[in-house]
């Protein structure tokens, strides 16, 4: 059997693998990179929407800004619409949360099939040894605890009926849910505590939301493009997305509690029938839209015991490692951070850093990814019922987006995540941050339960709209690194603003908060005690 030897082998030619290959060529041009993609057709994949952190990675780190603006669509933020319990509201009557201008930091809607095909081509042109229709199998990792005879990672690749053996110093598994490494190392952790399913499809010939309704409805958002937003139609326990892929194609998906999932949603008729139950959604599709294809997952979320083993030179990126929930499109954020960490560890290893140093760095990066996973899951776990209400989701959204910019985007924009000393300092606070996020999650759940009992969940779901976000006045500050104290001050301000709004909603329920103070010092939010 032929043996091919390469410095870095990447399993998987989807988003994670392709972006990493590009990053490695740009950062470490002296190292050879081979990429093995099992599928020979660049089939459609879900995961089209990027948010600000990933977009920063794509533009700043990977130099894809011009490509993205020329070939993909700029994203106009997130947009939420709310319905009646009977799901019979007309789109223009629905309460709306969403901007009336493009967001301060770039983000994009991706047609994954086109984007990944282009990346494969660009990577091949840049010197990556790209193998399409190449199935990797018979993996033998080279680890200190279990060395391989060659002293390198090894696996077999079968393409066009011919099998050869590949040896690589560094191995990155970016092969998605099928991950060879995750299976071999038994890394997957099920997350029954967040039982969310999804079904999605691509439509053509749908109605144009930006040429819809009376002029006043479009003027309400200054005629900015609603189509270019990631549009969420929100219901108790689930949401339906509209994401434009360009060239007349619209991705439409459903994500919700597993108990709501119906097996017939895996089929076009079943999926269409489900969508038909929602007047505003169906109004955009019914007359002439054609469903091109439909896919589904019964369980979306899973965690991993480990993301990286820098000292043993294997790594996971993207869905080979973990997945939380698509609601705020965090998938490409995870890829961005993982790829940065992987590239950094390979570069340091290549430059001669000791095994012990790499091991320590890898453990820190791993702990940070676990922290990010935990914090991200907290955004969603047990909170799908709040989607039913304009008032509650508006509160939660303004909290989530402000925390996202303050705690995750800003450090990334200035590469603070690659400063391991800074990271360790952040990680010392992680239990307190998680406690704070859990406290807010509990507050949102309490509001939802109270609103549901009082029959108030839908009371403002028609005829209201919000087009600015009150909690993100600090965005201009993010252009330069901020002292840690400023970050925490901003955190304190976000927490207090959100809690104050929550207290007003509690007052509507006739509940008296304890403690009653309108403003709390930051540490009070991070103690194991209810916020109201």
């Amino acid at each position, binding site marked *: 059997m032929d043996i091919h030897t390469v410095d870095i082998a990447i399993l998987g030619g989807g988003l994670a693998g392709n972006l990493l290959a590009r990053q490695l060529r740009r950062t470490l041009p002296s190292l050879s990179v081979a990429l093995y993609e099992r599928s020979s057709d660049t089939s459609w994949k879900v995961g089209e929407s990027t948010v600000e952190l990933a977009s920063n990675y794509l533009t700043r780190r990977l130099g894809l800004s011009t490509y993205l603006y020329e070939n993909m669509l700029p994203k106009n933020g997130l947009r939420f619409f709310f319905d009646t319990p009977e799901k019979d509201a007309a789109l223009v009557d629905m309460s709306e949360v969403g901007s009336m201008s493009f967001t301060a930091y770039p983000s994009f809607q991706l047609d994954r099939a086109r984007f990944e095909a282009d990346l494969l081509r660009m990577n091949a042109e840049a010197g990556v040894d790209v193998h399409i229709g190449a199935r990797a199998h018979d993996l033998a990792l080279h680890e200190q605890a279990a060395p391989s005879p060659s002293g390198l990672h090894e696996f077999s690749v079968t393409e066009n009926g011919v099998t050869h053996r590949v040896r690589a110093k560094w191995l990155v598994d970016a092969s998605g849910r099928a991950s060879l490494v995750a299976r071999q190392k038994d890394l997957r952790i099920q997350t029954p505590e967040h039982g969310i399913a999804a079904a999605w499809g691509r439509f053509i010939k749908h109605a144009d939301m930006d040429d819809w309704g009376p002029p006043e409805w479009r003027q309400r958002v200054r005629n900015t493009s609603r189509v270019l937003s990631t549009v969420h139609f929100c219901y108790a326990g689930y949401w339906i997305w509209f994401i434009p892929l360009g060239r007349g194609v619209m991705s439409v998906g459903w994500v919700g509690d597993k108990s709501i999932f119906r097996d017939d949603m895996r089929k076009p008729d079943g999926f269409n029938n489900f969508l038909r139950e929602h007047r505003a959604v169906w109004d955009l599709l019914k007359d002439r839209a054609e469903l091109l294809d439909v896919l589904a997952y019964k369980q979306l979320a899973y965690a991993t015991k480990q993301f990286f083993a820098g000292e043993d030179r294997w790594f996971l990126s993207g869905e080979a490692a973990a997945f939380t929930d698509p609601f705020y499109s965090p998938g490409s954020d995870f890829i961005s951070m993982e790829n940065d960490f992987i590239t950094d560890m390979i570069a340091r290893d290549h430059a001669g850093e000791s095994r012990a140093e790499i091991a320590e760095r890898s453990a820190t990066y791993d702990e940070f990814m676990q922290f990010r996973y935990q914090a991200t899951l907290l955004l969603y776990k047990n909170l799908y019922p709040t989607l039913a209400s304009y008032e509650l989701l508006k509160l939660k959204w303004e909290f989530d987006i402000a925390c996202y910019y303050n705690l995750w985007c800003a450090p990334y924009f200035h590469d603070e995540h690659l400063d391991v000393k800074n990271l360790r*300092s952040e990680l010392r606070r992680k239990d307190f941050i998680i406690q704070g996020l859990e406290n807010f999650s509990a507050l949102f759940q309490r509001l939802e339960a109270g609103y549901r009992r009082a029959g108030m969940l839908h009371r403002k779901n028609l005829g209201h709209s919000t087009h600015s976000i009150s909690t993100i006045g600090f965005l201009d500050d993010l252009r330069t690194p901020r002292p840690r104290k400023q970050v925490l001050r901003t955190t304190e301000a976000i927490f207090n603003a959100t809690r104050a709004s929550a207290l007003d909603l509690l007052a509507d329920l006739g509940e008296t908060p304890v403690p009653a103070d309108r403003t709390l010092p930051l540490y009070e939010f991070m103690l194991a005690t209810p916020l109201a």
Partner: protein
Amino acid sequence: MTRAEIYNRVVGILIKSFELDPADIKPESRLFEDLDLDSIDAVDMFVELHEVTNRRIDPQVARKIRTVEDIVNLVEGEIHGTPPGAAANDANDPPAATTASPATDTTDDKDS
């Protein structure tokens, strides 16, 4: 850990984390009024204390902290399981080594 050791550790944390002058720190020093700490500093202090006690901070006790001695009581209570303030109130009689070594804690914040 003895009460004197706890006091030294707390003083060490205050010196290292908040760049305080050791001479200013006394058991009766009020954190906010005398030592000029603020609500953000308090978070850092709780992070440090959590690493000393390795236990969740009791919210009811945390809210009542006003002085350096209150912190010593909290840590002692968390470590030894005694109610805060129940221990012999000997923090007014500072132990010999009041200039605790900052080396005893592991603060590595880039910007404290």
